[in-house]
């Protein structure tokens, strides 16, 4: 049986992709952001998922205003990077997992989530930036470490699906994954956010207090987040901050109680607050669990009270 072992929340700011593509990650401005993902990349190498489901939104790349699907699942064998106006990002073509994707589509549609099926789709920074942040830079002629199933959510035209709908879709996806016969280790990404507004005279809005509460509740009380009305997101977290509802699909696909193994928060990357979290299901595979214990044991003596406090002050948090 396939199983979801962990959920990852990550911003997908396009400027982060540009910094990676133009080798600017070591500049001080960008180090503030990229240093926050070093531990996550180590975690990902250790976790070695067989498949990743990436919940993201398209930014006028694959979908114009001709077609605006609320939930669109990529069932193709591969997804080329889109030309977003500066040529496609120099990243590998994303290989899909058509068998698991169509199994998910069939299962969740019968669970009353009326997905759009995409058998041909290009993917933009919304998907490839979080993949870079977690998998590292990958040469465009090499391969991403695992197949990926894209789930594009409309958060561009109001109204996006409600937080509750997203949360429930996550649960339906989990059920689908767990009824897939092959033994696959799956991780799910929720991307976008955190607070930001990039349009109109209020552009530049950041609300760190909101973001912190969002991350806290994502970890401990996601059912509370599922009740937040759209107006609160738009008012408090910015007109474009509403894309945070996508994180609830990821969260819905996890256990009610999860281990928060990592968190990072930094302001700003370009116009946006960068948020990142890794949540693990308790029932992780024995091998991965053991590996985690070892690394946690290694961390612990060094990560004393003061070091942890310092890490928190820098926006990092490690729970091991």
């Amino acid at each position, binding site marked *: 049986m396939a199983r979801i072992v962990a959920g990852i929340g990550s911003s997908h700011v396009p400027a982060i992709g540009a910094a990676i593509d133009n080798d600017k990650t070591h500049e001080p401005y960008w180090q503030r952001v990229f240093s926050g993902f070093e531990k996550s990349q180590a975690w990902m190498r250790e976790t070695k998922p067989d498949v990743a489901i990436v919940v993201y939104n398209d930014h006028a790349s694959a979908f114009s205003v001709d077609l605006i699907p609320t939930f669109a699942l990529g069932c193709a064998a591969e997804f080329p990077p889109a*030309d*977003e106006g500066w040529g496609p990002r120099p990243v590998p073509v994303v290989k899909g997992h058509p068998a698991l994707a169509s199994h998910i589509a069939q299962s969740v549609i019968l669970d009353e989530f009326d997905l759009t099926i995409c058998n041909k789709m290009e993917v933009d920074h919304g998907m490839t930036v979080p993949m870079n942040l977690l998998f590292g830079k990958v040469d465009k002629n090499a391969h991403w470490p695992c197949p990926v199933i894209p789930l594009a959510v409309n958060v561009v035209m109001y109204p996006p699906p409600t937080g509750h709908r997203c949360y429930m879709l996550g649960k339906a996806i989990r059920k689908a994954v767990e009824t897939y016969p092959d033994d696959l280790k799956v991780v799910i990404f929720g991307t976008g956010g955190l607070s930001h507004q990039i349009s109109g005279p209020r552009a530049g809005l950041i609300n760190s207090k909101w973001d912190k509460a969002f991350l806290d509740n994502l970890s401990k009380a996601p059912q509370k987040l599922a009740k*937040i009305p759209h107006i609160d997101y738009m008012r408090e977290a910015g*007109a474009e901050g509403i894309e945070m509802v996508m994180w609830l699909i990821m969260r819905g696909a996890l256990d009610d109680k999860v281990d928060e193994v990592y968190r990072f928060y930094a*302001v700003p990357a370009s116009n946006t607050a960068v948020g990142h979290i890794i949540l693990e299901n308790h029932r992780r595979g024995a091998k991965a669990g053991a590996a985690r214990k070892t690394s946690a044991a290694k961390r612990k003596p060094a990560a004393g009270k003061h070091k942890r406090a310092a890490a928190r002050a820098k926006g990092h948090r490690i729970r091991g």
Partner: protein
Amino acid sequence: MARGRHDYDDIPGTFVFDADRSRQGYGINMFCMSLMREENRKAFKANEAEYLKKFALTPEQTAAILKRDYNRMLELGGNIYFTAKLGATDGHSFQHLAAVMTGSSQEDYAKMMLAGGRSIEGNRSRSGKAAPKHAAGAAGGKRRAGAKPKAKAKSKSAKRK
């Protein structure tokens, strides 16, 4: 056609791209989408007014595009992810567009972002009636007696602000 009234009209400095604007701004957004192709960017730059005739635009929309009035484009149904393609065609970074929309210089805008961005305080509501919310999922203000202490502390700090 007049726009209906919405709760989000109370958010200052914001044009929500809703289903009405999506319909109204179809021409603006499809024009912007066309700029993803190099030959179209060239044709547009060669004769902007002529190129715009290919799209279903009102005179106001055409004027806003020609004047690069980004806020007006949003008001008339443009969406930022689309209008950003026009900015890119002009060779501008996104932060330049953001600065233009906020009426500040790019330098000042970048400084504001580095200092933590635009504060939510004072930018929450036109009417001033909206109470702060902190992603707690509760209906704000009123908390039940049984609420956890942590939640209470949060609502207190919200009132102080």
